[in-house]
Each structure stands twice: as C-alpha cells, then as structure tokens.
C-alpha cells in the first residue's frame, strides 16, 4: 500500500502546451499525491466514494467545472427517480428472463403452471395421504395446503433467486450504469408473474372444490400487493447479502425450509397455537406474527370459506366451545356450557359438526383475524423501507472484483 503513489510524479511530459490553470493544477496535484501517503486501508467505504472532502487543485478544478465523482452513491431521492425511469427496463427484463427460463424445455411456458401444481401434489401426497395427522382440524385440506404452498413459494423463490441476482448479472452491471436495485426488483416481478399464474390455477382448484364465489375473493388483491412489497424488501436484502457473502446462497435453502415448517404451510397454526398456548404463549404468538404465516392466512381467509369462518376471532369469545374444539381436558374453573360443548364435539366426530370444524372461531389468542391486515401492512412497509435502504447503502460496490 505504501509508496505506491510516487509513480505519478513528474511524468507529465506535455504540460507545457496546456492551459496554465489546468497545468498548475495537475502539477500541484501530482506533488500532493506524492507526499500524501494513504494512511490506512479503507475498510468498507473509502471517503472518496462517499463524496468525502474534495481537496487539492484537481478537486478544485473539478468543482469549478461542475464535475462529480463517478463512483459516488446518488442520494436516495435521485436514486428513486432514476429507478422510476427504469420501470420499463425492470418489467422488460422480468418478462425476458421468464421466457428464457423455459426455452430449453419441450413444454416451454407450460412449466410455469405445471411446476406449482406438481409442488402442491407432492405435499398433498405426503401430508394429506401418507401422514394424515397434520390435516387434523382442517376442513378442505387440499385447498388449504395448495394455497399455503403457492403463497409461500412466492416468498421462497424470491429470496433464493435474488440472493444470486448480482452474481448472475455481472456482465450487465459491468457494462451499463443504472440503479442496481432494478435487478432484484426485476426478479421480484418474475416471481410475481409466476405467482399470478399460480393464483389462476388456485382459483380453478378452489372452484372444483365447490368453494362459493364471494366478495371476499377480492381481498386476494391487497394481500398479494402487500406480499409483493414485503418480497421486494427481502429481495433487496438478499441481493446485497448474497453479493457480499457468498456463503449466504449455501445457507439459504436450509433457512427457507425451516421457515416453511414454521409458517403453517402444511399444518394449521391455529390447531398448534391452541394446543400449546397455555405453556408456550410467547412462542405461539411469534408463530402467528411471522410474516409468511400472516400473508398465507390472509390469502386463505380471502379464498376459502371454511378458513374464514374458522379463523381465530371470527366469532365472539366462548371458552367452552374453544376448549372443547381443541380437545383440552376439563379446565378449572369449568366454563359455562362446557358439558354441552364437549358432548357436541364427541358425538359428532369425525369432523362433520360445525363445532368440530369451526370451533377455532371461538378462540381469541393474542393474534386474531382482524389483526392480520395491520400486521401484513406493517411487515410490507418495514421490509420495503429497510430492504431498500440496506441495498442502496452499498450501491457503488455491486459488481466489484
């Protein structure tokens, strides 16, 4: 590092013919450069890259003619407006990638629909047919499961693909200058297109299952909008992390699988919460606040009648009905109507009585269905703002090395 600057001194051969101001500026700068040894290795962000303190004659010349450091991170405002100008690029890039992804396959674009179907089929085979235990307390298990799988895979695929977006697009990054956030956002748009196709499949499936069409279906739209905002946030987080730490991509599949099992994709979180809330209240609250679980539940409540009516808090609180539904042993003090509730559940098994199907509606744990929209909006805004800020901080460094 030391003594590396001396080379620039005295090697300007043709300065005699230059404008005198520039000439003296250059000579002074060379002299300064030779004396001014770089003191310490800049660790993360050298002062020059952040604008720093322009000093010396060359810097003065730059200021005089309005030149700006080329590797300077733009302010958030400028960055956002540049990004907005690239909206067509983001969408065009997403569409082109989507098309290119399946060009080698014989079935081509059909895979966009087939992939989520097969995915749901595998989970149904294992958790709906082979291991029947998880479908306990869930009416309409197939629709329940497929909704969960589709919504979760939107987040999962976004996370995994954006963690590689910078490495994938190195040639583009090194060739053209544009706000890099366009790249993770484009990948989110790719996954959104995939999600919309999955939704179409889902609508058909739900209709086949004789689910009634209601106005509640429209709530899918705001739910997906919030989920997309959330995914854009974590996508930008993953893009920076994946670009800076190569090990992240190795770790991610395991993280995602853990998240999958924690988010109630293949089992009912409601059942789980009631079973364990007496002893692990904080853990069951965390489980419900978990963003993936929030968005999955929002979409399920919008689409599936059974889910909406059995959601926590859908009916006024009734301890007897709630406990009887959850199969809790006789609580003390005994709530009003306990023996009636128990006899109803016991006499009408398996699962054809309203109480055994929708009893969870009488339970009111920490998080009930009316909280879900607030939680969903909160997660979306927080993730988007933090993710964007986190990504923008290292804008200049993407594609380095």
């Amino acid at each position, binding site marked *: 590092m030391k003594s*590396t*600057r001396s*080379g*620039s001194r005295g*090697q300007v*051969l*043709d300065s005699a*013919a*230059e*404008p005198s101001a*520039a000439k003296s*500026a*250059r000579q002074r*700068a*060379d002299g*300064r*450069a030779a004396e*001014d040894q*770089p003191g310490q*290795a*800049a660790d993360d962000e*050298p002062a*020059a*890259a952040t604008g720093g303190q322009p000093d*010396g004659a*060359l*810097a003065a*010349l*730059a200021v005089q*003619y309005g*030149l*700006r*450091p*080329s*590797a*300077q991170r733009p302010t958030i405002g400028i960055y956002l407006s*540049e990004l907005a*100008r*690239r909206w*067509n*690029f983001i969408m*065009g*890039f997403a569409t*082109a990638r989507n098309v290119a992804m399946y*060009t080698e396959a014989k079935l081509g674009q059909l895979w966009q629909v087939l992939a989520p179907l097969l995915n749901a089929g595998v989970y149904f085979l294992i958790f709906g047919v082979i291991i029947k235990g998880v479908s306990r307390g869930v009416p309409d298990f197939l629709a329940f499961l497929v909704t969960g799988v589709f919504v979760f895979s939107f987040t999962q695929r976004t996370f995994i693909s954006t963690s590689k977006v910078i490495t994938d697009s190195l*040639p*583009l*990054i*090194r*060739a*053209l*200058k*544009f706000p890099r956030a*366009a790249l993770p956002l484009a990948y989110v748009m790719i996954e959104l297109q995939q999600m919309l196709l999955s939704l179409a499949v889902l609508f058909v499936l739900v209709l086949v299952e004789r689910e009634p069409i209601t106005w509640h279906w429209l709530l899918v739209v705001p739910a997906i909008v919030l989920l997309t905002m959330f995914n854009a946030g974590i996508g930008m987080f993953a893009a920076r992390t994946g670009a800076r730490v*190569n090990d992240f991509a190795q770790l991610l599949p395991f993280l995602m699988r853990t998240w999958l099992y924690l988010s109630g994709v293949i089992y009912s979180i409601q059942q789980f919460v009631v079973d364990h809330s007496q002893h692990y209240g904080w853990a069951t609250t965390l489980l419900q606040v978990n963003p993936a679980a929030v968005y999955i539940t929002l979409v399920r409540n919008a689409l599936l009648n059974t889910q909406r009516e059995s959601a926590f808090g859908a009916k006024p609180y009734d301890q007897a009905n709630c406990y009887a539904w959850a199969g809790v042993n006789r609580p003390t003090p005994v709530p009003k109507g306990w023996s009636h509730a128990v006899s109803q559940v016991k006499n009408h098994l398996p699962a054809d009585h309203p109480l055994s199907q929708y009893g969870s509606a009488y339970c009111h744990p920490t998080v009930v269905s009316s909280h879900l929209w607030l939680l969903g909006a909160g997660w979306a805004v927080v993730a988007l703002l933090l993710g964007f800020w986190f990504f923008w901080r290292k804008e*200049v*460094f993407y*594609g*380095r*090395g």
Partner: protein
Amino acid sequence: MAKPSTGASATLPAPAAGTAEPTVIVDGLHVVYRVYGKGGDRGTAATALFRILGRRTRPTIREVHAIRGMSFVAYRGDAIGIIGRNGSGKSTLLRAIAGLLPPEHGTVYTICDASLLGVNAALMDDLTGERNVVLGCLAMGMTKAEIKTKYAEIVDFSGVAEFINLPMKTYSSGMGSRLRFAIAAAKDYELLLIDEALATGDAEFRVKSHARIDELRNKAGTVFLVAHDLEEVEDTCNRVIWLDRGKIVEQGEDVIAVIDRYIDASGGEKVTRDPVTRKRISAPEPD
C-alpha cells in the same frame, strides 16, 4: 493543447488554450481488486475451521492493486488512447472512470455518466439479439418511443441481419461485439469509453465504428480508447497514455513519439515511418 503537432493528431480539433473544459479528472486514483478463495489458504474444511476458531478474518482474500496512483485531466474533444501490456490496468482505469469500480483512494471526477463499451460486456447471452437491443436501451434510460425510432438503425449498424432473432450465445464473437457496440453507441454520449470493442469487427465494421466515434467526438464528447492495435490509436487519438503495472509511464499529445518509445520498451517490432509524414510505411500485424 494548441501545440501544432504532426501526424494524426494534427487533424483533430484541439480546444483553444484557456477555454478547455475538463470532462474527466482522475485525482490520485488507486483501485484494488479483492479476489476470494485463491491463494495461500488451500480452502479445505480444516483450514476454514481453524480460521473461524482463531477469529482470523478471511485470509483467503488476496488484494490485487490494479491501479497505483494516477492523476490526469481529459478535456472536451479529446480522444485519448490508453496503451500498455496485458494487466497494466487499462481496462480497470476505464471501469473506474465509468464509475463501475469504486476507487480505494483518490477520486475520478466526470462531467456526466460515462458509457463503457467492452468485448466482455455481454449483455444477456440466453436472450435474442432483439431483446438485448431493447433491454440494453431501456437500461441506458431510453424511452420506448426512442427505442422504436433507433431500433432499425441499431440492427442495421450491427450488421447481424437475420441473426437478430437468435439468442446472443449463438453469435460469433465478432457479431456479438458488433451488436453490443451498436447498442451502446445508439445514445449520444459526452463520455465514451471503448475497451477493445473494435478489435473483433471485420474491416467494414471498423470503418463504420471509426466514423461513429468521430461523430461522437464532434458532438463535443471525450473518447477513451483501449487498444492493442497501436495503429488504431495513432489514427484515432490526439493524446495517449502509456500504463505499466498500474502507473502512468508516459503521457503526451505526440502520440507517435510515445507509441514508438512504448514499442521500444516492450521489445516490439520496430515501425518504419516516413520521415516527413510520420505515417507507417509497412504496418506490422496487430498483436
């Protein structure tokens, strides 16, 4: 700048003394690449474990000091050739000017965003040429209407003709770089950085691209040209910077003199010049 010089540079417009407007100022620039993985550490599980246990921070990072202190000023209307051996920092310098590589120390000041044309700058290999044209233009910030008007011109200029509907990975390297040049040159720049982009083209394309570079320069731009083909530098540039191991060895407006000294120093084949015009009499094959 206004020095009456001989040879190629005499035909180029030089800004009048005193009014020269700087477009690029490189001020004490240092660029360091960090290479992960290779070197020292053999990358086995055991060494990684010991490293983590010993709390040593990533010894596998090797630093490559690609540019070791450079300062110069480029002016409006300049065409600057950058010469030097492989690995002397030519391409790195261009990337730093384009703002694609952050400096370790020092600063590069530019009048506006620069555009870099390079052979390695493949855009999206698995997409068709057509999509590459559209996406490249969009990424440069052009509107859809602008692209519509420029599209035919770009395809025409690149000369890839009916191959435009095939994925770019099926292109020959010459076709690929022609299309990339055509895309990047579709916009008028104040600052154009060309990294060997012209080397792969055929004779006809070279003529076209030279014309385009001249046109860009006449629109009050500044052009940087990295080339191993020294004759190209002589023909196109009014200034030349000779780099070696990340430092400036020599820079000057007497392009031919600098190039001759460079050829001497690097042990290349001597060029025989006409004593009056200083044009090459028998040009050696470009390396």
